[in-house]
């Protein structure tokens, strides 16, 4: 067993500014009710910048329904304030890909296979 696996499993959240007035919030590791406050805080901070938002789940290895709820709330807020919204998820982590599939959110959300693809999609179709 890789003893570092549990350390990798501990979820963390980071926020950075992307090109063209886009804020990127990245989730790494496992996220559930235990990390939900941190995740919501990051989404809210990004919303406060009045920029488009990309949520990057490519390095997330697990998300539960509470995190999906936060993602949907972030999309709702972005829509209400006329900001762009996209999700990046390369599907590398089986639990993340699986939960997006079985909940139907893989089709409901604007999910792109890479961060660059999400940024390109926002640049190509800016919100009105």
């Amino acid at each position, binding site marked *: 067993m890789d*003893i570092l*696996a549990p350390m990798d499993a501990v979820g963390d959240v980071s926020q950075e500014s992307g090109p063209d007035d886009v804020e990127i919030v990245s989730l790494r590791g496992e996220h559930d009710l*235990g990390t939900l406050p941190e995740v919501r805080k990051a989404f809210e901070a990004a919303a406060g910048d009045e920029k488009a938002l990309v949520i990057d789940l490519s390095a997330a290895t697990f998300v*539960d*329904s509470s995190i999906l*709820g936060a993602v949907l709330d972030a999309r709702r807020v972005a829509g209400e304030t006329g900001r762009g919204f996209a999700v990046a998820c390369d599907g590398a982590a*089986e639990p993340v890909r699986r939960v997006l599939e079985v909940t139907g959110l893989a089709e409901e959300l604007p999910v792109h296979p890479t961060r660059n693809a999400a940024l390109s999609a926002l640049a190509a179709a800016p919100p009105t």
Partner: protein
Amino acid sequence: MSAPPTELRLALAAKPENLALVRQALSGLADGVSIPERPLADLKQIATEACMNAVVHAYPDRDDGRIEVSAIANGGEVELRIRDWGVGFRPRPATGDGSLHLGLPLIASVVDFFAIESPEGGGTALVARVRTHENGDEPAIQMPAAPKEAEVAIDAGVSARPVIARVLAMAATRAGFSLDRMSDGVLVGDVIAAGKPDDFADGRVGIEIAECGPNLCLRVGPFEDGGATRMVEQMELPGLGVSVAKLADRFEVEPGEDGDYISIEIAPGNAEAA
């Protein structure tokens, strides 16, 4: 030939931060009995959603609630049981709390069998079965659990090491241990897992894990009569003493109500070699 069933139980405080511990225990189980990635992902999702329901809804007016998670693998299938002793399962009106109310539908969408029970003694039990192997001739597993900070019990044998190592590593990570000390904790777990089934009561390795101040406190047992002392003797290296005791800040055999226990305390910083 089918491997014999293995049983593992986790007993946990109903706290959000314990959900990750449940997933690590399931990963350890998967390491031990070769559960493929897809069914493991489903087992983690089920356990997390069910435990989250218990954390959020079962104990609305208490902060001392507990959850028990058990997993039993048998015949290419794992049965998960997540039990609480809270207010019981009941329909809840939409509250506008932002919840997706996706937990139960999500569970139902990935299982082969799913039931909600109102067990004797109160609370709610969710039972789910997931097929892990198609030919039904695969190793069988069982996991159980109980509450302090966490209690893990698993049949002594090949499945014990990965489960104990992952749970201890997660607990050490959560307690802010350095890599060196986390490795020491895993080594201690390895030695415990290597114990003989005859030494443990019911042939099952039991460990209670608690954060005591900045340290991790482990209580291993109960052991059959003399089993704790035998295990310590097995750890002793000629001229070097008890190797594992040197990794720990406290290491002693003490009597319990149902047998002897080994109490171990590990500090997050460097221990003074004994």
